[in-house]
């Protein structure tokens, strides 16, 4: 997925002089996850450069650049480090268009690796999507595979609204079913690893059905798509797996259609449970599909604790926990 992200940046930088890429260690070095490798050499230091370690400043200057007319794509080194920038994101990027009567807007993309599974401990593992989905004016996107990563990132860069672009770091180098004991798999053999050359888009606001099924609808995104697939295989539950891809805007039609078909719903995310985005999904499903639901909606999520280092796999909502929820949903 690293290559797909780099490719999206490359395509857009080549096509549009206005696209600039910056962040901590993204310039000469090419980013701690190598997503911007080679871009400085190719496009020059004023199109791809290192930023001082100040996330609030990174977003603040990106807003100014966007207001000027550029299309900044800034990297936050880990999603866990986005909080210092929260004010600039919430009070400024998200509101610029509104408060100025559309005179100014901030077409910025904030890329950030999220999620655990690499023994990163509590400050290299978080999934903070819910603190963005609550903020009107932002779009929040999270790919689960290279094809989507490239297509969604191109959409995000072309979008005139600020986009929070979360990249599940455990997927950077391969899909991950949630079995840490199994050998790591590379993307190569995965059907969604192929990324067409040049520009293509995956539109924001459209979910994808990753697995069709009639028994229960699974709403998930990012790493949890692969975990849910594994759980469905392993339990044999006839699950329909929706990869939401974009949380805001949300593809509520796809969700409702699936839940009305299956009558059951399991929601899976890696972020902590309480007030996570799963709560919003559950609330909407409960409201819109009330009469179709045969069993209670279940949420499987990270526990309401910081992400621990050693007990990472007790924390991670793996296929076993998801599988139990699938079975429970089938039973009632």
């Amino acid at each position, binding site marked *: 997925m690293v290559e797909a992200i780099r490719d999206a940046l490359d395509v857009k930088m080549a096509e549009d002089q206005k696209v600039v890429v910056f962040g901590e260690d993204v310039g000469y070095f090419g980013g701690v996850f190598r997503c911007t490798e080679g871009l400085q050499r190719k496009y020059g230091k004023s199109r791809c450069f290192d930023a001082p370690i100040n996330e*609030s400043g990174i977003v*603040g200057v990106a807003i100014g650049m966007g*207001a000027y007319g550029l299309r900044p794509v800034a990297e936050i080194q880990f999603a866990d480090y986005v909080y210092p920038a929260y004010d600039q994101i919430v009070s400024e990027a998200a509101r610029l268009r509104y408060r*100025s009567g559309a005179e100014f*807007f901030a077409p910025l993309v904030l890329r950030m690796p999220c999620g655990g599974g690499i023994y990163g401990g509590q400050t290299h593992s978080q999934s903070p999507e819910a603190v963005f989905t609550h903020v009107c004016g932002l779009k929040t996107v999270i790919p689960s595979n290279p094809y989507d990563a490239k297509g969604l990132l191109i959409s995000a860069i072309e979008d005139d609204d600020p986009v929070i672009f979360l990249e599940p770091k455990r997927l950077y180098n391969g899909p991950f079913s949630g079995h840490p004991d199994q050998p790591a798999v590379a993307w190569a053999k995965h059907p969604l690893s192929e990324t067409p050359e040049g520009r293509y888009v995956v539109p924001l606001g459209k979910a994808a059905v990753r697995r069709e099924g009639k028994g229960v609808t699974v709403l998930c995104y990012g790493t949890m798509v692969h975990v849910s697939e594994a759980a469905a295989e392993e339990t044999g539950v006839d699950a329909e797996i929706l990869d939401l891809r974009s949380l805001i805007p949300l593809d509520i039609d796809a969700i409702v259609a699936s839940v009305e078909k299956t009558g059951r719903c399991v929601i899976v995310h890696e972020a902590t449970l309480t007030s996570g985005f799963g709560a919003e999904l559950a609330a909407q499903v409960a409201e819109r599909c009330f009469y179709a639901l045969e069993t209670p909606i279940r949420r499987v999520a990270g526990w309401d604790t910081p992400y621990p280092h050693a007990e990472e796999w007790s924390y991670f909502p793996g296929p076993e926990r998801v599988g139990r929820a699938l079975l429970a949903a089938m039973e009632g």
Partner: protein
Amino acid sequence: MPSAARLSLHVPEPSVRPGGKPDFSHVGFAPAGEARRPPVDADPAEFRDLAYSLIRVLDDAGAAVGPWAEALSAADLRQGLRDMMLTRAYDARMVLSQRQGKTSFYVQCLGEEAVACAHRKALAPGDMCFPTYRQQGLLIAAGWPLVDMMNSVFSNEKDRLKGRQLPTMYSAREAGFFTVSGNLGTQYPQAVGWAMASAIAGDDKIASAWIGDGATAESDFHAALVFASVYRAPVILNVVNNQWAISSYQGIAGGESVKFASRGHGFGIASLRADGNDYLAVHAVSAWAAQRARANLGPTLIEWVTYRAAAHSTSDDPGKYRPRDEGAAWPLGDPLERLKLHLIKRGEWSEERHAQMRAEIDAEVLDAARDAESHGTLHDGPTPSPASMFEDVYKDMPRHLREQRQQLGV
């Protein structure tokens, strides 16, 4: 060797409180004409002293003196006087309107008119200001229509901001006036980013960032200085030290032990401290900084020393925390009076012409107010439509907002 058996907390306190005798000895002000004027391409390390002195042009007798005195035409200065008078009259009218319930809130800039008005004239078309709520002078000096500003203050049907913003939070892209944020300090790094973008694009436009003494304490102030200095962004970093935040004086922001201008030194940023009540000084120093920025020589931080002569806003009563007569003791005078005196001294102005201009301005403001009021005020007359509340959250209204708009039934 000094030692303290027990530590204790130092909490800065203004030299006087209500009932006390005003004292501004800490301002440390210097006679006009004394501060030197380095070439714009001088190394900032060579004029650090200018952050501790005070650049002044107009002396007490109204003469323009010293190396910062520029050759501004009488016409320009008369225009400057007019801009300041208009700003003051506009403010007075809006405060009155607020008292009359025509809007919820207002912020005037009484006593600080020179800072924004003269600065604006030192910028070029296309430059972008990132102002706070107290820089209405930038808009007025740019010739922006008063009635448009009033429409926003009244949140009426013609409000270009569709009734969404608090009064004084204008936005006017064409006038080089960035949308004002209610959040202190946030616009400072944005200005730096805008300036960086201009540099990236190979443009020749510069940015001008604004912040108050109190808000320099905000962390975004630091973010801005870091980025501005690292990338040598073409930006002017204005700090308006009007001595007060809301009820807390500049000492609570750090002004007890230093001059705010010196905050630039730790970044190698050119840093100047200037008399903000001196139209000529503001213009000259601003022009110097603008020239420096445009020559790709990087940022300049300027502390404008001035005094907030009125309440913080219409919600505030300064009599609660400072002597009511403090303003009268302010050593740098009134910017309008000082420029008027200078023009009269130059033989380019008179009490009669002044009185006449005042009358004209009053009429102009009144006309504008009547015009604006005819389009509604906050609680009276036409307002923006409730449906517009759902617009501009995103470029295209997403489905969930369309649904909510329907629920509201508009």
